[in-house]
């Protein structure tokens, strides 16, 4: 039987405020255990939460970028459940009146090949609310240890509508979401560090049916590849059950990346009874409309809007925009270089290819590539390099060499060209003399060229370039060789 797949995602994103959601204790990933704690973090008797305004601002900013409506008033609720990582055994969250309502994320489905732009569509969001992160459990063979450093870090929980229909769409959504969060600048979204965590709800229904099937919730998906694998596993599992005439149990399942399988955590019958009620310790937040308008006005251009603009007004190919646009820092770098020298394709090429290659090559073994912010080059370097090529000062060939030197030294390209005497040679006399030598030394190539094999000319150009160390102006060289051979005839 054919089924329609319906997927909804719940994504927890750690907001990178300096301090915690409800107290001034700082947070930093990787700090020694229990060094970022205070009476509120530990839930000591008598302590009270005080809202961190920076977390509200960050979440509102994200909400606006995700096209959410910002609530007039949002409130705080207690979600009651016991767990050793939860210092109060309730979580402060927004159940009844969240900060952000609705919203949508534009996603790109995979194209027919890597170099081909895929179809775009909008995925609907249900809401974004703020809540606090619990501490971190570490399981040993005999017991469990608890580090409360993470407890109280602000989380934005982004809840989609059941509006995704395949693992590809879910992955595309996550990628698009991560790019948007980077643009908002509110989280680094490093899944390995737990900065972004994903739960997936999956259900199947007979193709074309209007009624949703029974869903299962998958927890603990801590990488994009896990999200893909877990959803695919779940679709296959449910398909098999339904095909066999069995029904799906509403349950929470845990994905095991090691085994590539999921297993039931608890069924609906054992589901938590969270006993939500309004938190009496925190006051409601009324969102100042003028401030919301200010945040709205200051929003960055969304990545796919930028991509369309680059493609339409700068005539950049998809192969370049698809590299640049997901990363707001690359785009800023690109646009700053463009201000200095308006050569979009050349500059985009240098950033998307040469620069990124050097960045990943210079990363230490086993670590991820350096970010553009660690780059020894400025937009001015790239702009000047592009200008030297365009003005015919250096050849593209020489430019590669200049790039490597400037990446290593940080010197400006003009300085390198000057110092190392790399200027392109337009000395026709010298080139002509070398061309004559080349023609004299390779009669076979000359004959082939005369017979109409244009590529044979390259065999003659090679020795000339070699002799000039690549500085011969290729156009001049080409023209001289052709005219010499013709005049021979």
């Amino acid at each position, binding site marked *: 039987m054919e089924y329609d797949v319906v997927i909804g995602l719940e994504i927890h994103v750690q907001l990178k405020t300096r301090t915690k959601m409800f107290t001034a204790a700082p947070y930093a990933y990787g700090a020694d255990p229990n060094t970022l704690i205070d009476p509120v973090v530990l839930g000591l*008797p*008598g302590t*009270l939460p005080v809202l961190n305004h920076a977390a509200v601002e960050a979440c509102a900013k994200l909400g606006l970028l995700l096209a959410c409506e910002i609530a007039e008033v949002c409130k705080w609720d*207690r979600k009651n459940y*016991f767990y050793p990582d939860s210092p109060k055994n309730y979580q402060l969250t927004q159940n009844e009146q969240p900060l952000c309502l609705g919203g949508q994320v534009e996603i790109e489905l995979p194209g027919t090949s890597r170099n081909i732009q895929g179809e775009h569509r909008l995925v609907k969001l249900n809401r974004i609310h703020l809540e606090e992160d619990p501490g971190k459990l570490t399981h040993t063979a005999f017991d469990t240890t608890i580090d409360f450093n993470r407890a109280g870090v602000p989380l934005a929980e982004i809840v989609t509508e059941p509006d995704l229909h395949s693992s590809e769409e879910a992955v595309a959504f996550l990628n698009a979401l991560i790019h948007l969060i980077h643009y908002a600048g509110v989280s680094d979204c490093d899944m390995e560090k737990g900065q972004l965590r994903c739960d997936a709800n999956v259900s199947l229904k007979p193709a074309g049916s209007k009624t949703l099937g029974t869903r299962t919730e998958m927890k603990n998906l801590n990488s994009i590849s896990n999200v893909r694998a877990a959803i695919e596993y779940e679709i296959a599992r449910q398909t098999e059950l339904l095909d066999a005439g069995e029904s799906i149990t509403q349950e929470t399942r845990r994905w095991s990346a090691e085994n590539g399988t999921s297993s039931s955590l608890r069924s609906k019958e054992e589901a938590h009874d969270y006993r939500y009620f309004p938190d*009496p*310790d925190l006051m409601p937040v009324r969102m100042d409309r003028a401030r919301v308008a200010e945040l709205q006005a200051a929003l960055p251009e969304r990545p796919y809007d930028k991509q369309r603009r680059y493609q339409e007004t700068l005539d950049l190919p998809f192969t370049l925009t698809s590299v640049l646009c997901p990363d707001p820092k690359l785009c800023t770098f690109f646009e700053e270089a463009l201000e200095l020298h308006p050569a979009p394709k050349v500059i985009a090429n240098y950033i998307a290819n040469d620069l990124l290659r050097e960045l990943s090559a210079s990363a230490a073994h086993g670590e991820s590539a350096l970010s553009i912010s660690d780059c020894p080059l400025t937009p001015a370097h790239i702009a000047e390099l592009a200008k030297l090529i365009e003005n015919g000062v250096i050849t593209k060939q020489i430019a590669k060499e200049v790039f490597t030197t400037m990446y290593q030294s940080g010197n400006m390209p003009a300085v390198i060209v000057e110092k190392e005497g790399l200027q392109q040679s337009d000395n026709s006399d010298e080139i002509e003399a070398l061309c004559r030598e080349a023609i004299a030394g390779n009669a076979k190539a000359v004959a082939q060229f005369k017979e109409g094999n244009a590529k044979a000319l390259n065999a003659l150009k090679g020795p000339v370039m070699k002799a000039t160390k690549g500085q011969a102006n290729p156009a001049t060289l080409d023209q001289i060789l052709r005219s010499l051979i013709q005049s021979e005839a």
Partner: protein
Amino acid sequence: MPELYHQTIAQLSAALEAGSLTSVALMQAVIERTEAVEPQVKAFIHRDAEDALQQAHASDERRASGNSLGPLDGIPIGIKDILAVKGQPLRCASKMLDNFVSPYDATVIAQLKAAGAVLWGRLNMDEFAMGSSTENSAYMATANPWDLDRIPGGSSGGSAAAIAAGQAIATIGTDTGGSIRQPAALCGVVGMKPTYGLVSRYGLVAFASSLDQAGPMTRTVEDAALLLQTMLGKDPLDSTSIAMPKVPDFRAELKHRKGPWKLGVPREFFGDGIDPEVKANIEAAIEWYRAQGSEIVDISLPHAHLSVPVYYIVATAEASSNLARFDGVRYGHRSVAVEDALSLFTQSRGEGFGDEVKRRIILGTYVLSSGYYDAYYLRAQKVRTLIRRDFENAFETVDAILSPTSPTPAFKRGERSNDPLAMYLSDIYTIAVNLAGLPALSLPSGFTSNGLPIGLQVIGKAFGEADLFAVAQAYEQAHNFHLVTAEL
């Protein structure tokens, strides 16, 4: 002159200021008195005489060098075992927190320290402030100094008994449904619950967050005014604390606010269940005010009779969540017999909490649980709105409301232990005030025929503490019941 330990803050601070008394001498008198009567009264869960004398000594040095911190400097003030004092046990009279020492100060404590007060001991209470008799302490039952077989009221029973017995000059209590006013009434002292939000709750171990307030317990209204002056103020660590636009000097205001007033009497508070002697006493007090020129107005609080169910739903719901943090993981009692994380929770809590706390946690968990929230909690919060409105309407015509504090005088120990509902109903005159967030004060208004104190409750407008004190002091100065002390 009464003994030092039976004097007021106002008297003692004048003597300290005049140099006729040192804080160390005062503290020594209080310590000696405490040691003499504590075996009978059992007001203290913990006390550290050496530490108190050191604080008193530091106060004397400040005063000698001309750096006195004001009228509270050097005055021994007892603290209910529910407010966090850095380096001192914080047990809430519970086995759950048997070994817990607070690593931080409550805001109220920081304020008292800044005013030079000598923090004296940890006073007994009903476990986690749940009770009206101080019988629910895991450590001991405190006796009423006026009749040692009777309860001192609760939950701030230790705080009230300590003053009545001369073991402290003043104390700090907390009041969620009458826990300052009712023991004050039953022990013949002044107990004042401020407007919700006037005093920071940071460091007050939460029972019911939307109702809890700390407040002064003293011998006189003037002392309560002095003490409250130090405790109030917007606290950045408590989002529910509220800045008074203009904080009056309560003690100075007492001289300017002399009445007469328009005083409301809620008919609903004189019906069934009130002890005839209490009723007669309070009616006489009302007549006194009338005779002094105040206008007495019959008012109606039509929803007040619903206060008990509303209170016991709202308070237990909040408590069930507030007390979830006592789980044996990070601090407090951990059962030794645990095999897994689940039994760590259930057994530690089962062993650590007493009966009344368990009863309220179960009740509060139930009223919030799936399928019952709307019927109980949400409905109670709506009726709470109606109760608040009743008071708002009443205060459109009156300056303050008079009523009994407790329907009965102190009862015998054990008398109501097995009837929680009867115990809950004894809070009937006090809890509506917490639900409405209003300030109220209980002051001694006389004695029953067998010598038990009776308390008159004065309820004020929100943030109307200055008037509240003035109304209460008028009666106090004409009757001087505070000069009668319990014989021990």
